[in-house]
């Protein structure tokens, strides 16, 4: 077996084959925003259906506060835990193994289900394009669903730099498409076709009252779901303490702008009854807005934007799910076989391969709304862990014990706000998907019991803590 010096890291611990540190802050931005931006192109408008356009705007901003707290908390903790696995690794160091196992599963399921949802959407988009070009009888969507997953898995397998550079380009195009349609339709530069006053007055202002606002919070998450995925790049960025907070915080700012502009454009062009029906009405509201504008250039641009946003999201999800799975394998929380790194491409190749058939099964065999609900609920459970994690982190390792790349302000206010907003969102989700919520919590309880009574005996307890942290205060 021939090996060059570039294949291995020579470290104080001997030789090891690790992931490559080749990413910069722009890639971190592309990873976070890339996963999320599809939520601006489709899905968020179900919030309009739940409570009208004003309810969707309030949900957009409250969810924006929730995710700003997530981004700030993640930025501080991850700037000190520069390892793959993101919140899983944070939980392992700060809370304990059972929480870490659960958080790892939340991450893998949230991202793999979202990847499956994106692939289903991509198949639908290709079918729509075929219909628009005169194809009759509908298209078999399966080959396009499978191709999306296989191509992106191959790209991820071949290396993280190419994968996230690809994400950077297509995410930037999708974001610029939103800015372009805003400029073209708003009174600032364009024709000023907005009809907010007519479309949002009287009964249309808040059709279901304050309960509608609460119900809209469920789909308010769509505007930002996945920004926390930036932390999975921690082991592959050149300067984690600088790049991760910079990329994550720039990402949430981008999304706050994109979400508000998207709401403004769509609610000013479509009545809430049509906009809020994401199945038979505005399936892809920004694309529908482009069609209403009458500009064929905008229709093309937003069509491409929708396609790119979907691809970028699936791509980022493969990246993040595989890093979480790989980290759990490396720590023996799962079979160590999954903790392998490709000696040439330096990617967690077995984790990438293992998750491909799982994504395919869900993409080809499960309905979109169930797949997405499973993803949202797994994400929400992960957000609930974050405030607990943050409070324990500051208590065990105060500011003067570990050097942070970023210190989030007003602690513990963001952690408390995040917990309060998570509680509101649980109630909102319970209103619409109570059975799924209970079934999923039941699932995580069962796997926790399996981990506690069986799997934990295989974990090498000392080996999993290799970060050069000081002892926690009080220990």
């Amino acid at each position: 077996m021939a090996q060059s010096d570039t294949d291995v890291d020579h470290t104080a611990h001997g030789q090891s084959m690790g992931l490559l540190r080749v990413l910069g802050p722009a890639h971190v931005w592309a990873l976070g925003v890339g996963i999320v931006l599809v939520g601006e192109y489709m899905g968020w408008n179900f919030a309009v259906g739940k409570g009208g356009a004003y309810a969707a705007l309030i949900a957009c901003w409250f969810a924006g506060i929730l995710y700003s707290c997530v981004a700030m908390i993640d930025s501080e903790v991850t700037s000190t835990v520069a390892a793959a696995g993101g919140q899983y690794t944070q939980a392992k160091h700060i809370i304990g193994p059972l929480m870490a196992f659960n958080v790892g599963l939340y991450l893998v399921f949230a991202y793999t289900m979202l990847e499956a949802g994106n692939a289903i959407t991509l198949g639908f988009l290709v079918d729509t394009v075929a219909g628009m070009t005169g194809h009759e009888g509908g298209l078999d969507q399966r080959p396009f669903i499978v191709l999306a997953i296989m191509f992106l898995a191959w790209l991820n397998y071949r290396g993280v730099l190419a994968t996230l550079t690809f994400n950077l380009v297509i995410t930037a195009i999708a974001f610029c498409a939103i800015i372009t349609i805003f400029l073209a339709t708003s009174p600032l530069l364009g024709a000023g076709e907005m009809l907010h006053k007519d479309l949002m007055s009287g009964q249309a202002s808040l059709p279901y009252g304050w309960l509608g606002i609460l119900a809209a919070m469920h789909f308010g998450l769509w505007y930002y779901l996945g920004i926390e995925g930036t932390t999975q790049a921690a082991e592959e960025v050149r300067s984690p303490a600088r790049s991760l907070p910079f990329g994550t915080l720039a990402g949430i700012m981008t999304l706050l702008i994109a979400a508000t502009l998207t709401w403004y454009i769509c609610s000013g062009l479509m009545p809430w009854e049509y906009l809020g029906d994401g199945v038979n009405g505005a399936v892809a509201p920004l694309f529908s807005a482009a069609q209403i504008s009458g500009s064929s250039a905008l229709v093309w641009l937003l069509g491409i934007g929708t396609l790119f946003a979907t691809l970028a999201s699936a791509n980022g999800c493969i990246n993040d799910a595989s890093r979480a799975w790989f980290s759990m394998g490396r720590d023996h929380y799962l079979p160590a076989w999954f903790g392998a790194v490709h000696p040439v491409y330096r990617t967690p190749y077995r984790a990438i391969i293992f998750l491909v058939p799982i994504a395919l099964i869900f993409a080809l065999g499960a309905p979109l709304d169930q797949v997405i609900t499973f993803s949202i609920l797994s994400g929400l459970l992960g957000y609930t862990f974050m405030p607990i994690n943050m409070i324990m982190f500051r208590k065990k390792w105060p500011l003067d014990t570990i050097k942070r790349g970023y210190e989030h302000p007003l602690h513990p206010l963001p952690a408390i706000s995040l917990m309060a907003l998570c509680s509101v969102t649980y109630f909102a989700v319970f209103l619409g998907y109570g059975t799924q919520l209970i079934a999923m919590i039941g699932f995580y309880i069962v796997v926790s019991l399996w981990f506690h009574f069986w799997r934990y005996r295989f974990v090498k307890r000392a080996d999993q803590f290799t970060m050069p942290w000081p002892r926690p205060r009080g220990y």
Partner: protein
Amino acid sequence: MDTWNYIEYGAWALSALFGLLIVIDWIKIDTTYTEEMLTSSREGVLEAMTEKHKLEGGDGTI
């Protein structure tokens, strides 16, 4: 049968190609390198070399 039907077949073919590329490389790597080498990655190794966190009034590390 129109262009879109041919595109469907093309998508199946490309999917199979990407799958094949991954599987061939996977087998090649797993048969060329030892399991020890492939699973030798350790968390935080780079940081262990470059960073030292100090406790206030002490220097204990985990």
